[in-house]
């Protein structure tokens, strides 16, 4: 994968656990040697596996906020912040900016999760780095404090004028904190763009599941998308490899073969049933697996249980098609 980060934008690297996000971040910081590839900052090669060039971490001007913050437990908060910038006065300024002045002489262990995160951010920013890397900045917090800390973090991120890259597996975090998303799976970049671009046109099962839509991949063939040996009628399908998205709300379920206009009708078997608030999501197994969203009342009326045979229908105009 290859990407360029610009000043003035916050980029989130989004992906499931084990996608290699943290590994990538550590490699950018020089904490893990590159097996192949290059890291370039402002035109200066920091590392190039091909030539063996390597600028050590301590000379890269990269601030790093670690997942569990890693504040040095044997130093006070102000000593932690002063560690990189080598100035107590500057450290105190940063603590004031972060609202932590009264904890200056406290040990990190005495701070709450959100305060620790601000202290870690102050420590990373105090030396004035060109790049700020954040690894799952909110993962160590409990749910009750996360929203407030996220708001603070967004403000502090926008105050920093360098290159900002954060890693997260939480789509909400990515969408609220970042201007641009890079979706990463199994060590590869699968998609990149603004939150709207990514969520409207998912290009992987992972993103489709995050957004909660049915994602099909197949070959467009004049008004249909061929998925394996099946064919799904789709308005706008022309030719070439395409993705097709069907929102679960557009998928209707029936006991008997439905009459009328829907072009896509087939029989399947109910798999898992999941209740989400006032909605129920039913996974329908079959040649083209689909998730349908219905009301619990409809679910009761259909008498659906796992394993029941059921008819699926949706309109060709409810299928959004775009090139793969």
């Amino acid at each position, binding site marked *: 994968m290859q990407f360029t980060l610009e000043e003035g934008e916050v980029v989130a690297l989004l992906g499931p656990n084990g996608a290699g996000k943290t590994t990538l971040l*550590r490699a950018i910081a020089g*904490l893990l040697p590159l097996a192949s590839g290059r890291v370039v900052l402002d035109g200066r090669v920091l590392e190039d596996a091909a030539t063996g060039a390597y600028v050590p971490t*301590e000379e890269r001007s990269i601030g*790093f906020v670690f997942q569990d913050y890693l504040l*040095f437990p044997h130093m006070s908060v102000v000593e932690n912040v002063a560690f990189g910038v080598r100035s107590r006065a500057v450290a105190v300024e940063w603590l004031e900016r972060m609202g932590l002045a009264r904890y200056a002489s406290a040990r990190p262990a005495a701070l709450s999760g959100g305060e620790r995160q601000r202290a870690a951010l102050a420590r990373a920013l105090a030396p004035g780095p060109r790049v700020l890397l954040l690894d799952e900045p909110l993962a160590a917090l409990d749910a009750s404090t996360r929203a407030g800390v996220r708001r603070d973090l967004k403000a502090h991120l926008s105050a920093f004028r360098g290159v900002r890259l954060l890693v997260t597996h939480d789509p909400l975090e990515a969408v609220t904190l970042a201007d641009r998303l890079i979706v990463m799976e199994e060590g590869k970049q699968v998609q990149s763009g603004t939150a709207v671009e990514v969520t409207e046109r998912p290009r992987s099962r992972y993103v489709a599941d995050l957004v909660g839509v049915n994602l099909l991949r197949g070959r467009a063939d004049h008004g249909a998308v061929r998925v394996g040996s099946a064919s799904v009628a789709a308005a706008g399908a022309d030719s070439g490899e395409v993705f097709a998205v069907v929102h679960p709300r557009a998928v209707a379920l029936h006991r008997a073969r439905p009459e009328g206009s829907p072009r896509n009708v087939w029989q399947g078997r109910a798999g898992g049933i999941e209740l989400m608030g006032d909605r129920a999501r039913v996974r329908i197994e079959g040649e083209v697996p689909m998730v349908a969203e219905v009301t619990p009342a409809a679910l009761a009326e259909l008498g659906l249980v796992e394993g029941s045979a059921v008819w699926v229908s949706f309109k060709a105009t409810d299928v959004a098609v775009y090139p793969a």
Partner: protein
Amino acid sequence: MRREKAPVWIGLLAALGAAFFIIPLVGLVVRTPWGDAARSLTSADTLDALRLSLIASLSATAVALVLGVPLAWIYARIDFPGRAVVRALTTLPMVLPPVVGGIALLLAFGRRGLLGSWLAMVGVSLPFTTAGVVLAETFVAMPFLVLTVEAGLRSMDRRYEDAARTLGASRWTVFTRVTLPLIAPSVLAGAVLCWARALGEFGATITFAGNFPGVTQTMPLAVYLLLETDPQGSFVLSLILLMVSLLVLVGLRHRWLGSA
């Protein structure tokens, strides 16, 4: 933990095992002539031995710290060819009969030893000197420090070092300001163990440094020799060494005896 009743035979053998340790210690305490203790303690020879023991064992611990912590760091962090062999050789004194260690030291640093003949040319002679005592004690005791510190280095969270590096710290700054403070408990435990071992050193010391009162005669040597001339005095000195050992054990109980 579930309360369990011990089977009779296991209980008996275990009690025998415990008594094996407790009875000699009780004997030492009971048979020590407390009335003579003050006299024995203040005799010139005893004070000399005590002073020499403290100086030599503390010096040995200092040498072990200066050389042993870097050695432990290398063992824990650097993968070099032959590491297992070097590590085994430097651990050997823990299991080697100390007398053999003393002879090995003579062959290396003695007047005609591998290095000793070179040292003699510049006028340095180690055998039968106080420096020789320190050398013998370091040889026997340093492995305890190295192994303890190495274990501490292996179990510490290395990401703190990563964090320090992203903050622009050089490798040396990382070591002194982050690594060392984080493994301080291990260094302290290793130093105390090393010191206790050096304080009790007998075999290597008497072999390499001999037994000259005031120069190389440490407490364990004095105890052994007093047994012939003044048994009462040797009991008192033994008790002092026992007290020191007990203090070390109590001080380290959380590390070595669990919370029991």
